[in-house]
């Protein structure tokens, strides 16, 4: 089996080598490009994202359903969730299998406060984020001292508990959930900023703004002291501890930040859909978001966004696949771990770190030649 696995790896690697190689050189080019060129690149991507709801694009991307709705959920929501989970799984190297719980906490914050207490969206948003972050800390504090796989099972249990609690309590409406959730207040008379029922565009733009913010914050974080601490504890927790990295505090931070992005995503989602039930938050969603992160390349934001887009969009575009979606994604998870654990676009920093004897730290200005064919990076 191991032999065949190796052979298949070789075959796929050689077949796809030109693709991966071009991805590589593209990245090197990007990293060496001058600042103005990169700024233009970012601007181009943002313009593309702003134009995405156009009807002509929709005709191709999702001919069988409303493209604007799909852009909001699943595509936008999955991207937001995957970016949040990436902080926990990709950067800090902890496996969270109950990530949907934070999405649910955000959603129920919006629903309960909006319907019962008539708070507005912008008042609820920080509360929902804080509630998710707090529950992340409460869950993390007892479990983060344990080995990684225990954390995975405990978070899995937590995701289930949240769903069942929502199903059992009266304040969350039990199995029927909560309906009549208020929309965000409209701004001016612009059609793209008036939050109604039919047009999904305003919600998409709101979500897009959140995605840009999250990307901005996580990029800054990754390059900060905390980000370097995460890398250290991901690679070798004991060594990091010995070098004076406060591993426990940093783990809690990763958990809280990941959770707050989940909460944010949950509030935005609930503000559009009018009604939520516990069935909106199945375990499967946690797993799908994990697939987004792993498929794209955990630790690499571009990869993660691409992964989330593919996972969300493919079943919508090819409706015939929708039934087999979970089967295919399950197989993809195994195949990715066996053949290409780094994902479609492995994180550059991680790849550099794994080139033995080269010191790593390309982002910090270290001498690392990323073109070197190195060993396959691990998750």
């Amino acid at each position, binding site marked *: 089996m191991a032999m065949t696995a190796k052979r298949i790896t070789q075959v796929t690697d050689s077949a796809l080598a030109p693709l991966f190689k071009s991805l590589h050189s593209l990245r090197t080019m990007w990293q060496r490009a001058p600042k103005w060129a990169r700024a233009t690149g970012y601007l181009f991507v943002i313009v593309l994202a702003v134009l995405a709801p156009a009807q002509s694009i929709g005709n191709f991307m999702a001919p069988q359903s409303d493209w604007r709705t799909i852009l909001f959920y699943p595509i936008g929501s999955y991207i937001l969730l995957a970016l949040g989970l990436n902080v926990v799984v990709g950067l800090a190297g902890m496996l969270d299998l109950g990530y949907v719980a934070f999405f649910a906490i955000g959603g129920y914050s919006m629903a309960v406060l909006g319907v019962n207490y008539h708070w507005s969206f912008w008042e609820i948003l920080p509360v929902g984020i804080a509630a998710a972050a707090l529950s992340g800390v409460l869950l993390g504090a007892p479990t983060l001292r344990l080995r990684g796989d225990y954390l995975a099972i405990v978070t*899995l*249990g937590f995701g289930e508990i949240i769903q069942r609690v929502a199903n059992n309590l009266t304040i969350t409406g039990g199995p029927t959930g909560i309906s009549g959730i208020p929309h965000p207040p409209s701004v001016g008379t612009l059609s793209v900023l008036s939050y109604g029922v039919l047009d999904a565009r305003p919600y998409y733009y709101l979500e897009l703004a959140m995605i840009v913010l999250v990307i901005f914050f996580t990029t800054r974080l990754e390059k900060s002291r905390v980000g370097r601490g995460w890398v250290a504890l991901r690679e070798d927790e004991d060594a990091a501890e010995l070098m004076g990295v406060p591993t426990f505090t940093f783990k809690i931070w990763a958990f809280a930040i990941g959770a707050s992005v989940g909460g944010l995503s949950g509030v935005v989602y609930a503000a559009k859909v009018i009604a939520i039930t516990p069935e909106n938050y199945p375990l499967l969603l946690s797993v799908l978001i994990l697939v987004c992160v792993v498929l794209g390349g955990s630790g690499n934001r571009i990869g993660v966004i691409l992964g989330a887009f593919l996972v969300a969009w493919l079943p919508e575009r090819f409706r015939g696949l929708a039934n087999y979606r*979970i089967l295919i994604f399950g197989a993809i998870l195994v195949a990715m771990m066996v053949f290409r654990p780094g994902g479609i676009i492995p994180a550059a920093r991680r790849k550099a770190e794994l080139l033995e004897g080269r010191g790593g730290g390309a982002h910090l200005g270290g001498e690392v030649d990323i073109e070197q064919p190195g060993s396959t990076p691990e998750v």
Partner: protein
Amino acid sequence: MHNLIIQFWPSVIDGTTTGAIYALMALGYTLVYGVLRLINFAHSEVFMVGTFASLFTLHALGITHAPGGIAAIGVFILITLAAMAASGLVAVGVERVAYRPLRKRNSTSLANLISAIGMSFFLQEVFALRYGRDLIPFPRVLQKNVLFHIGTGVVRSDKLLVVVGALVMMFILDRFVNGTRLGRGIRAVAQDPSTAMLMGVNIDRVITLTFLLGGIMAGAAAMLYGTFYEVTQYNIGFVIGIKGFTAAVLGGIGNIRGALIGGFALGLIETFGGAIFHAQWVDVVAFSVLVLVLLVRPTGILGENLQRARA
């Protein structure tokens, strides 16, 4: 409180029954953890396949109502063997496909876990697509006769079968691991894989054997579950799997006798939890037990040093 007093003996009996099934599942997690230091996430699907295997055997035999006498014993032997064979094969297959290629490359435990989750969802979907997503009923295999009373509790034949069947399986496993040459191989690898290898133990064979044993135990659990609850579903393994894992952690993961104690303890805790709060909170109680055990005593009741495994 009054409720609790009335419910005391029935809760003890129900808790022991479900606990027996959890204990059998816990054995699978504990065996694999002992040898490989990894949590076999796909074990819940090994169980699920076992329930389907016994159901299909019943269909093939044309059983629609409980047979009597000698025929009943024959039917039981057949469905037990079918469930054990199917679960054992699936467990070994999972190891081959999802774990072995990763082990050869020294992957992280995170990679192993993700691979196992993929495997788990793949297996669930195979059954969901083939047999639908609804509950599938079992024909009755055993008349649910009242045998005798303990206090206010009623002991039914199916509950007795579950407890006795599980205890017999655990006894056989305990004798196998502690008393045979193959079992000695398992214990040697669990203690120190590299030294065991130097002493001439074939590690790959031991690992296959471990998954097979865990699968057989899950198959037995699946058969007992099928006769007791009389339903199955493509995702039936999920909750049972989490509880089996909780039981393994509660007793001290990596410890075979711990799995037994953990299983019965968890069964009793959640049944009493259900009697005190409400039946719909049973699963929440069980998950909370897992979090609490990890918080207060991560080594479990009988103890296995988890931190040692980290190095």
